[in-house]
């Protein structure tokens, strides 16, 4: 019995150690983990405290006891459940016209959140701005319009020429032996 217990504990330790090593591989030197890794190893990270970094994007969705904001890390995004007192730390949210604040957050990752009916999220307890967001400069490059204008002129000219010199079939289907020109005509 003792031996069985020993084997069981060793196996459990090895399994947990393996799981730990899997998780640690994805954690970088700053102790942070990517969102892609969180999702790909969701079961391993479920319920654990993690540090993620990325751009806050889109909108803030207010709730009674906190708010939702989404964080984009590479091409993957994750929902952050943030306490209301941290709202003042977020200034700019990413969109087409803005690059959002790059933040580093620490919180508990839930693959199936018990508080929010099963969706994956991170319950944040600390948020730090790494790089403030900024507005993108939006201007119309007039140089891009010139080829379009040229294309429009060429196109309009081509259509006009086609319309001027198009072939119009005769209404009379029978050929006239004496005058072939009457079978059909070119406008002009």
């Amino acid at each position: 019995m003792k031996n069985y217990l020993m084997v069981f504990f060793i196996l459990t330790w090895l399994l947990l150690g393996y799981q730990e090593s899997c998780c640690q591989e994805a954690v970088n030197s700053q102790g942070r983990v990517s969102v892609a890794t969180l999702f790909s190893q969701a079961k391993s990270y479920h319920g654990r405290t993690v540090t993620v970094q990325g751009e806050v994007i889109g909108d803030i969705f207010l709730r009674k006891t906190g708010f939702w904001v989404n964080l984009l890390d590479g091409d993957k995004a994750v929902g952050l459940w943030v306490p209301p007192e941290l709202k003042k730390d977020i200034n700019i949210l990413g969109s087409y016209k803005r690059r959002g604040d790059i933040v580093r957050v620490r919180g508990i990752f839930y693959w199936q959140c018990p508080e929010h009916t099963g969706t994956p999220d991170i319950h944040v307890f600390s948020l730090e701005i790494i790089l403030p967001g900024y507005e993108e400069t939006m201007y119309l490059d007039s140089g891009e319009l010139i080829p379009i204008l040229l294309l429009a002129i060429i196109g309009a000219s081509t259509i006009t020429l086609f319309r001027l010199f198009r072939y119009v079939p005769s209404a009379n289907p029978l050929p006239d032996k004496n005058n072939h020109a009457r079978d059909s005509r070119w406008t002009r």
Partner: protein
Amino acid sequence: MPIDHLFVCPKPLYPCLSLSPNFSMIPNFSREDASVIAHSLGRMIIILGFLQTLPLTLAVFLREWPVLPDFLLSIVCCLILGGILLTIFPPVEEINWRQGMIVVALTWLVAMFLSAVPLYLSGHFNSFLDACFECMSAYATTGLVLVQDLDHLSLAHNFWRHLMCFVGGQGIILVAGIFLFRGSGAFRLYVGEARDARILPNIRTTAQFIWLVSGTYLVLGTLLLSGCLVLSGVKLPQAIFHGVCVFMAGWDTAGFAPKSLNILYYHNPLFELLTIIFSLLGAISFTIHYAVWTGHFHELKQNYELRVLFSSVILSYLITLAGFGTLSRQFPSPLAFYRISFYQLISGHTGVGFSNVPVSELANWSELSLLGVIFAMALGGCTNSTSGGIKALRAGLFFKTIRKEVRKLAYPEGTIVQERFHHQRELLVDDRQVRLALTITLCYIFLYLSGAILGTFLGNGFVPSLFESVSASANVGLSVGLTNPSMPTILKLWYILQMWCGRLEFIAIFMLGRFLVTLGRK
């Protein structure tokens, strides 16, 4: 496609395709046919150009200046190409069945290429092929995406993605053709787009009714979805934008969303519930909508197709639940389990393709659960709705036929056995309807399997490959992760073909094939 049209139309739906010995006697396509087709195509391209003025206007309104050249170039291309076709090829009074089918098939293909121009120029796509994939996915109301960094895409481009869903779901022809083509020519184009509901005696009034229903729900849906977001503290213009986009993608069972997290972005169960309701409404036949609008509520109870749809929802959900087995205990609560599993299933069954979990979550489901969703996706919604797949009425006809055959065997020889069902009115199951339904069903099954085999050949598992293939062919849009910008080009091309065939329900594509093969032959 058009099965219920057979119940109201005394003539075969596709006279040119009747499976009689005369099939080989179908005349080859002539240059005159090509001329008629080219002229009609020109009209459609012009309309497509005008359609792009909507996102262009939005870009001006929102001061998204860098976006303007993208749409201007595309509009100019459409107007020139359409103008040249209209000028070179003479106008026609009316187009016939064969020509109508080819116009529809070609319109969808050309619309894909021309609509991809502004998307490609946005810089959010790896290649022009990826932009084409996105456009076909939008027009066919599939919802598979290859866009990159969607969260930083301009609102004008994003609106264009969703507008394509709306136009494709309603039918490009319904949007443009009905107002350009007169008489029975319009009906031929309408049927070519896999629609055939003669809700009202006239095709123009039918189209107007469909637009009335869609317009009313658009206003209602936008109000409800935007209201949901405004209550969460989102600014009104943003809320309206999200409301309009999500409604268009939900009602037309497309599954696009303005953000990369799809519906999970909103973290709002009420919002999810509304998307389920609108996608279910989108998956219901317009003939049923008409019955309800005119006060015939008993149709909801009696309609056979609706019964089949809800039975298949229950059956496929049971399969999915069985697949979860003990895995369901991992969910923190029963509510959480139902929220996740039922949402994906309804999303698959209606063909909407919205998702409230990350893509990697579906990949973690057991194979049996995935098969439940595959079954739901393969079957799809109702005929004459905005959803794809085999359709509930065809599945219902199949079961009625089995029942009829069993009853024939049970009764004494010579007994005439008939099966009835209610679809607008009491109808008899006849062999011609069943043959057509089974033909289309078989085509779908071949299409599903072809993508699955190709996906497996390229090194993916069979079940994920089948899932993705069915999702593309049935115009659903759920993904287990196979669809991504780095997927093989051959698979992208094949999925485009699957989405195109699945949306138009084969006949128009077959006609286009015949047209290309026989053009110019004597």
